[in-house]
């Protein structure tokens, strides 16, 4: 796709003159995007959102998809609120992104914020009405990721940066049907959403309400040929007999380190598929794909990836390309892109026999099934317990989710001698965590230890497996 032609998502779709190949297939409905030519999913209210900062907070991925198509180029900013993010963060997100309008299917958002001047319903249906979708803005797309303190970070993108890795399909290309385990409001899912739209292929959307087996059944009934997910999504799919119903030509993994085990398992199940794992982050964008079926990546990738410059500084992978985000939103937000234009991913690399392998994160962040966990956030919750002196949250390798969260806890001296029932204490600490944290952040095990190593800096020594 020539970048200059991407004035807005709707203009890119409609300029091809033929929207007939474009379908969004969800567990709710199958929609032909050609219906948008003389219809609207916003009941014709899209124009009221012109120039506004619009929060898209829908339960349904289909509704969010349609809102994005209608609002890119029209709204000044669209904020994608992932359905699994606790609603308690809404006020922070609304404030930081200067949101003044909400698009919702009414199931997730309570109104009452004085800043919000417009509320537009969107339920994933298209009703006949005319809409002016003339592009007047290079709309900012705001994606949310986890931050150290638990507050989400707001990552700024545009259609151009998001679509930077997407190449136009040659017309002779075989019939492709895309799907993804990801929610499209996560970077990995959004990539597949845009790829399907900009290359004119149908897309089968996943649904949080649907079992893995039902999703795989539905994907196979739509003839999915290309499908993406995190290694954890795939490990879960491998637990379902329904995985054999699908016969994909292309299987893509991203969002977590793909180990040799998951790559081998997928090759066994899909011997004829091309299996690729990609390195991409919400901040740094899509960097490269690895297609040789091996974990890690060849050292030559660093110097020889078209359109993406990479360097390794202090063992960390740094990336410069037109696909990176320029900045985080918010007054106190950290620097996202350095003065030289490189984004430091914080992902640490080790070179072994001409191949680089990811060995962890500099900031100690833990990746559980593609979702970030900052140890400090979990430790802060554990440390609230009156018997706890200090704690260290770390990761343990796990065959299902890649890693799980483990906590080492030092009790106050008085508690250690009091011979308190440790099971009861574990239970109390877990209850605290359950009240305050998303489920993937809750420690799977709590170990009581007599001390924790503290470095000369005065900080806890963190060494993750």
């Amino acid at each position, binding site marked *: 796709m020539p970048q200059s032609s991407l004035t807005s998502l709707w203009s890119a779709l409609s300029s091809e003159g033929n929207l007939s190949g474009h379908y969004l297939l969800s567990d709710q409905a199958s929609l032909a995007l050609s219906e948008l030519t003389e219809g609207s999913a916003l009941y014709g209210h899209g124009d009221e959102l012109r120039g506004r900062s619009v929060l898209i907070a829908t339960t349904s991925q289909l509704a969010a998809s349609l809102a994005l198509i209608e609002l890119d180029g029209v709204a000044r900013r669209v904020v994608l609120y992932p359905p699994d993010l606790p609603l308690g963060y809404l006020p922070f997100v609304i404030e930081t992104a200067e949101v003044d309008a909400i698009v919702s299917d009414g199931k997730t958002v309570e109104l009452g914020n004085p800043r919000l001047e417009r509320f537009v319903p969107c339920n994933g249906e298209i009703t006949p009405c005319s809409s002016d979708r003339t592009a007047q803005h290079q709309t900012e797309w705001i994606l949310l990721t986890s931050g150290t303190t638990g507050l989400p970070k707001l990552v700024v993108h545009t259609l151009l940066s998001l679509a930077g890795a997407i190449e136009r399909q040659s017309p002779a290309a075989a019939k492709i049907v895309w799907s993804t385990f990801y929610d499209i409001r996560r970077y990995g899912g959004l990539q597949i959403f845009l790829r399907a739209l900009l290359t004119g292929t149908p897309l089968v959307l996943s649904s949080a309400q649907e079992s893995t087996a039902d999703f795989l059944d539905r994907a196979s009934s739509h003839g999915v040929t290309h499908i993406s997910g995190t290694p954890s999504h795939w490990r879960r799919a491998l*637990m379902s*007999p329904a995985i054999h119903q699908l016969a994909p030509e292309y299987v893509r993994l991203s969002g977590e380190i793909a180990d040799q085990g998951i790559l081998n398992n997928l090759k066994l199940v899909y011997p004829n598929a091309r299996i690729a794992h990609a390195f991409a982050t919400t901040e740094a964008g899509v960097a490269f794909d690895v297609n040789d079926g091996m974990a890690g990546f060849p050292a030559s990738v660093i110097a020889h990836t078209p359109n993406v410059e990479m360097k390794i500084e202090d063992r960390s992978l740094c990336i410069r390309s037109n696909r990176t985000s320029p900045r985080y939103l918010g007054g106190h937000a950290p620097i996202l892109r350095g003065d030289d234009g490189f984004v430091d991913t914080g992902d640490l690399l080790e070179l072994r026999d001409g191949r680089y392998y990811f060995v962890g994160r500099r900031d100690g962040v833990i990746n559980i099934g593609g979702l970030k966990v900052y140890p400090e956030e979990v430790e802060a919750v554990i440390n609230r317990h009156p018997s706890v002196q200090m704690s260290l949250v770390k990761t343990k390798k*796990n*065959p*299902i*989710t890649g890693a799980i969260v483990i906590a080492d806890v030092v009790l106050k001296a008085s508690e250690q001698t009091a011979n308190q029932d440790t099971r009861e204490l574990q239970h109390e600490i877990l209850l605290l965590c359950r009240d305050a944290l998303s489920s993937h952040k809750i420690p799977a095990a709590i170990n009581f230890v007599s001390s924790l190593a503290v470095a000369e800096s005065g900080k806890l020594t963190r060494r993750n497996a």
Partner: protein
Amino acid sequence: MNIRSEITTQFQEVAREYDKRLAPLTDRLTLLDSGLDSLCFAIIVARLERDLGIDPFSSSEDALFPLTFGEFVQFYENAAK
């Protein structure tokens, strides 16, 4: 130590802790229909390693995950031999 009863206990405990409705644990029960999610299975595997000292997944990179509860028990029983 009875591996089956230890596994059954862990399934029940994790289901209770994470507020999941656990299906009756018959050998033919497909694990994905048990009511537990990926995170629950991850925790069960970690706790079984702690309590039984066995991690059958680490023995082979190519170990395919068992699909039914019966296969899961068998997987651990074989690793314990």
